[in-house]
């Protein structure tokens, strides 16, 4: 219990710090400031929203009769926020394409290796 509490505290502190950093960058862009209470509120909201997200993701995965959370689950969670969903969609596509590229590379390299091996064998 204490460990979890301590861990929670650390988590919250980390989130708070990160949100503070983000807010500072945004404030620098906008030329205005964020008050401490604002940052604290945002951090708390983020923390709770993360909790909600996690539960939703888990329930979505279970709903799809899977035991692992998938990209599809994430997309479903984010569908409410249009900007976020488009962003995630893009990222997923990029990732998918990157994966494919990697696969192709691996195939090529493996094919090359096989070819070399056969050549070696021949040799």
């Amino acid at each position, binding site marked *: 219990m204490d460990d979890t509490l301590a861990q929670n505290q650390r988590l919250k502190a980390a989130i708070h710090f990160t949100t503070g950093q983000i807010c500072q960058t945004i404030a620098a862009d906008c030329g205005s400031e964020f008050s401490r209470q604002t940052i604290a509120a945002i951090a708390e909201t983020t923390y709770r929203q993360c909790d909600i997200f996690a539960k*939703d993701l888990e329930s979505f995965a279970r709903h*799809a*009769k899977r035991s692992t959370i998938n990209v599809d689950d994430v997309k479903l969670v984010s569908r409410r926020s249009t900007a976020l969903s488009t962003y995630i969609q893009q990222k997923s596509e990029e990732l998918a394409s990157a994966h494919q590229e990697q696969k192709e590379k691996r195939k090529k390299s493996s094919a090359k290796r096989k070819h070399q091996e056969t050549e070696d064998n021949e040799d």
Partner: protein
Amino acid sequence: MDSLEDVSARLILRNVLQTEKAKSPVKERVTRLQSQPATQRRMSRIKTGRKTSGARSPLVALQQKLKQRVREGASCSPPPTSKQNKESTKKPPQPLLEYQLATPRVLLRRIIQTQAEAPMVSNQPDAKDVNPIMSHTPCTEEVRPLSSESNLYYDCQRDPEVQSELDLSNITLELMQPIPKGLSRKRAPTSISVSAFERQLEHLTEGVAEPDVLEDFSSNSSLSLTLNTPSLHVTAQRGHLQRKPVSRELVTEEVFDKAVHIRLQECPEPSGILASKMERDSSWQGFTLGMSDVTVPELTTDIIMNKTALYTQSLSRPATVDCVEELQTNPSEKEELEYMKQTTITEVGSTYPDEMVPETQEEEEFVSGTTSEITHMDDPDHVRVEPMSECKVQDSGQEAEKQQLDKSTANSSGVIPESLSLVVEELQAKIVECYDGTTLTPAIESEEIENGSEVVQMARGLPDDKEMDTLQYPEQVVHNSVYFSEHGATSEVSTKTRKSGCMFNVGAEKDYVQLKCKTGRQSDHVLDPDSALPSMLSERTNEELEEENDCQELAQQTPVFVRQRKEEPTIALSPPVVNSGNPRPVAGKSQPHQKRRPAVDRILRRAILPKTYVLTMFRHFAKTKVSSDVYPVVNDILQRYFGRVAEDLEAFASHAKRKTIEKDDVELLMRRQGFMIDCSQVNVLIEKFLPLEYRKLLVPIATSGNKVIPKERY
């Protein structure tokens, strides 16, 4: 301030002050202080005052009461005590005293004098004095205040008939307190001891039945008991400080008025109401009352006015909005509009000139109101008018575009069509936005739409209709819906369908208009959190679909229209075609036109749920009264809510790679919405939400264990 007419605190105060001004400062202060709370109390308590007309001061009434009491006390046969003799002896001088000074203090004094009792054996030497209160002798000082008070007690007890005046005696008792204080000031400070008090009690009990006295002591406002003894202690302790009021400031009329003024000034705007109220009420409660009355109507109006706020999309498109606003605000443009419309009419050579003319007039009116009215699109009251107006504007816009593009006819000016086209685009975009949440039928299955199919048929029956055809509206919608459905069938979750939805121009070649529409859609996608997912329409009511259909029709007019125009450039503006170009989204032919009209009206006006039903439900859950004005708002909300529910369910089903919504999807939705959480019991939910019949079925299942919900399903 001077408008007080009724007996108010101010009036009383004034009277009291006026009557009391003849006194010495000490006496004045005392009496004033006494009278201040006393008057307020008297106002509430005086029931038996003989003469309590409005103008009489309570002080006078009190005096009269006391006189009455004195007379009664004199008349009644007191218990045989030596005190009585003293009373009789005192009486002759008393009448003189009675009417000398009309202060409560003096009156009390007289009461005490007239009704000195046996227990006051120790007071006999005092009783001899004219003023037992005034003559404190050191030996009996401690007893005297007690005796005077106990006299009063005895009085109360001895005069059971004067029960009604008990309150008066209470008042006098209260008045009594400062009197001994004041008196004691002149005398040596009294040292009150419990023993003395007890002695008094004993004395009292000698002559009178003990329980009665005791009861009196207790019943006669333990108030008085508590007040007396501590006060005496206080007087003993404070000594010379007794006379001074405890942080009580002199209340004069001026002070009162000043305070009122200050209060009024402190209050904000509604003070005008409040001031009058306050003066009426003579209490500060008027503030809250006034405030509440003022603010409540504002809320309802705000709710109604803020309907526009629901459509946040308007914020994201300042450019086009400005255009529209410019258009609206510029009367010259309106005139141009009218002129243009007239020109179009003349060009067209309408067979329905009647319809056109009033429509154009309405158009002008509605152009100004479109942007605001668009937000009321879902409102059944406005819906009928809205799409009409939009159609009209769009029609004019289309006409303008057509003129612009074809340049076949003489345009009034290039500016007008452009502005109109902008308006059209704006409207279309807005319409799109409005209904974006309800997913402009990306996956409409025509069979599920009764009227929609009607539209489809009618539209399909007019493939040859031309650009100017507003007939095209339904057709275009159908086209688009078909396209959408195609896309919807193939698309994955959300974004793809959205993109396909954005693809107005499936087959369309026209440029900026479509692009604008697309951008409009995309932009409002940014804003609108609802995604245009292909929706499983099993959950959706036909009315919604019909409305969506209509909106799509209206929204997608231009691009498809443009497309068709490109496809069939030869089909120039033939008069009959143009005739059908009514602002109404109806088929070109008169018959289908007329058929369509009531259908359209029905579609646009239809509510999500019956009005009485909705209002009954709403009132059931609302704690306060609900007016029937809320119905359009609630209708709108319901529409959105059901739309979102349907979208979510569809998303969940597709997430599970299914095409049918299952109960699992519903469960998931309820979980997300917070209706069901891991620890909440299903039977609780059942009892909460389901009717009794289901309860019988489900509760035994639910109570069997709540860990894994799906397993419990039968």
